């Protein structure tokens, strides 16, 4: 497998020049042949698989899995950002690091094109799973499913009903115009100085906020052919960007938000009652942040509302995490068994506490299976369950043609240019053009 690379390395050692070692190693790697996936072992019972995700589930659950299948699990706990870095490094270097790991919705196109993950439909009956897992569509690329969703994250609108009532706002806004008018009323009444949270910091959270707002205006940022659909002033994406920037300029959004990231805005503004609404919030926040006494001063005051749209309630966009099998996995079949177990309705019910608190998987908020969300709602275990259930059923992928393989570049351009438009250094029109240029160049491979 190493061929020329190994020989070059050996020559480097013989030269005994420590100073040149790093340079030779680089050259060696450049010369070495690309490691192709070995196909891995078909061993199931008796295999020890490595699973790289966030915090581990309860040890007893993993023990149960081993007892049922004979597969031992070695868990690698990494934060989400570090994990993405590790996946990229391992995939680029074509090196094994785990048998099962995270597949983020935004990287599905990239992962699919580069063939970093096994098609899950080779191992599991994904077609039969689809009905209970509406977000499976976000993990489909080239006709194959590359990850099974385990976390039903999607973008939602949250409001602080107490603040809205104080400002004399009654009823739920159904359109963007009504929503904007309500926010203006909150501001003019003096209830809060800046009623809307938009995280304008140049980070991924700003990109997803724009996608959701674009959806609310009745469109998508890319069309089915993955071409930019936001350059015309009449387009939903253009209007969404203009609305966001105007909200800042007209004082609906705190001026300091120019440097506020998504989670920061949720934790320090929404959870502290400093703003009355977040248009694109995380779907679990009411239960996991706003209703938690130790970190929130708005317990019981917030709720999800159907996303106000151009002409009435709009849909929600999905940004879930899935779990997949890297092509370099040593035990892909055993990993598939694990994924089947990990994403099963039974296990998700356990993890959410439906079958006892000892089985709770901390950090696991909204299950990807609709049936489990329904059970949680019925038992009163999910704050805003009724609303979330309805939204999950209809939540759509961000990109109708699938996430493009050049998504990281695109997102970078989105948040950089929207941030610049918010600071006033460029116009919204210039921002839209710059983002479109990036998309067109990336799509053409230049």
């Amino acid at each position: 497998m190493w061929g020329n690379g190994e020989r070059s390395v050996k020559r480097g050692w013989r030269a005994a020049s420590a100073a040149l070692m790093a340079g030779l190693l680089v050259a060696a790697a450049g010369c070495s042949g690309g490691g192709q996936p070995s196909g891995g072992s078909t061993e199931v019972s008796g295999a020890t698989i490595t699973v790289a995700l966030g915090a581990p589930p309860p040890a007893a659950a993993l023990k149960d899995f081993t007892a049922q299948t004979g597969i031992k699990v070695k868990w690698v706990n990494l934060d989400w950002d570090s994990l993405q870095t590790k996946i990229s490094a391992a995939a680029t270097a074509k090196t094994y690091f785990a048998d099962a790991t995270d597949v983020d919705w935004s990287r599905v196109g990239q992962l699919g094109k580069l063939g970093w993950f096994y098609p899950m439909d080779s191992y599991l009956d994904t077609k039969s799973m689809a009905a209970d897992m509406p977000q499976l569509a976000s993990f489909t690329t080239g006709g194959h499913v590359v990850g099974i969703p385990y976390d039903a994250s999607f973008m939602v609108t949250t409001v602080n009903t107490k603040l809205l009532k104080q400002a004399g706002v009654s009823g739920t806004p159904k359109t963007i115009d009504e929503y904007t008018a309500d926010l203006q009323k909150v501001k003019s009444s003096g209830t809060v100085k800046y009623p809307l949270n938009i995280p304008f910091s140049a980070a991924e959270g700003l990109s997803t906020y724009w996608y959701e707002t674009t959806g609310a205006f009745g469109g998508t940022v890319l069309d089915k052919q993955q071409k930019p659909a936001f350059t015309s002033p009449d387009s939903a994406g253009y209007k969404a960007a203009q609305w966001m920037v105007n909200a800042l300029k007209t004082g609906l959004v705190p001026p300091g938000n120019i440097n506020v990231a998504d989670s920061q805005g949720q934790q320090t503004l929404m959870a502290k009652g400093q703003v009355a609404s977040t248009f694109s919030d995380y779907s679990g926040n009411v239960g996991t942040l706003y209703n938690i006494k130790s970190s929130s001063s708005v317990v019981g005051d917030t709720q999800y509302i159907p996303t106000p749209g151009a002409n009435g309630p709009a849909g929600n966009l999905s940004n879930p995490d899935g779990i997949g099998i890297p092509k370099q996995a040593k035990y892909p079949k055993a990993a598939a068994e694990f994924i089947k177990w990990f994403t099963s309705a039974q296990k998700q019910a356990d993890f959410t506490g439906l079958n006892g608190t000892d089985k709770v998987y901390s950090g696991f908020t909204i299950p990807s299976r609709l049936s489990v969300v329904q059970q949680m709602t019925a038992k009163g275990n999910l704050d805003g369950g009724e609303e979330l259930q309805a939204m999950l059923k209809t939540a759509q992928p961000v990109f109708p043609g699938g996430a493009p393989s050049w998504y990281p570049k695109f997102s970078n351009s989105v948040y950089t240019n929207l941030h610049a438009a918010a600071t006033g250094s460029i116009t919204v029109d210039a921002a839209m053009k710059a983002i479109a240029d990036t998309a067109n160049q990336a799509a053409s491979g230049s």
Partner: protein
Amino acid sequence: MSPAWSARRRRPVRGGTSTVRRIGVVLIVLWSVIPIYWALKMSFQTEGDARAIPAQFFPIRPTLQNYARLLGSGSDVSGGIRQSTINIVIECALATIITILLATIAAYAFSRLHFKGKNIFFYAVLATMAFPPYTTLIPLYRIMSGFGLVNTYTGIVLVYVSGFLPLATWIMHNYFQSLPDGIEEAGLVDGARRLQVLWHLLLPLARPGIISTALITFLFAWGQFLFPLVLSSDLSTQPLTVVIAALQGRHDVPSTLMSAAGVLAIIIPALIALIFNRYIVNGLLTGSTR
């Protein structure tokens, strides 16, 4: 020191210049210290207090709950913090020892021996410092993987050594250059061999340079994140920097817990910097005033 130079040093600084300098020093100190103070303050707060509006500049209701969670036996994260602290100490110490050994020998050769292509080799060493470290990440990962060194102390230490060796060699080279040739020549005339001269004469004199190079290497190694993240797979080798980052979830950033972990992580490097400050400055300035 010449009388003229001595007089120049004693010349009093004019009032205006002195005030500007003091203001500058205060600003630089504040710029450096405030983030550390803020992390320290947050480490003694609950999440609610840390995010309170208006911001609390002091922990009004100080708590040790974050430290208890990080260090207390039986907590969900204490085992990881303990093991990763051991890992980081081992990795940094080994990398420092090996780097110093190799850098000393290489620096001695570059500064004292005469061989063909010496300058080319030396400048090649310096040139490697110009490479952005990330460009070598993937190749090094592949090589370490090929040799079965991923998730081993050996793999991480080797990568640290390859990264820090050029700077260490350069600092040691400058130090050797600052020592008079006469000492070595006297030893050679008295019949000592090169290695004996190095061991018995030069190394004792170069001890401050060795100490400062070791400190700088250790501190650089302590702050590493990306390379150990990629080259380690679990708690058997993950250093503290990687484990602290893993405390956060995708939708949840436990800022006070992470601040407390950050405070623990800077104790050792801060002590080193405070106690051995003289050596570190000396090492960085060696050769600059010749």
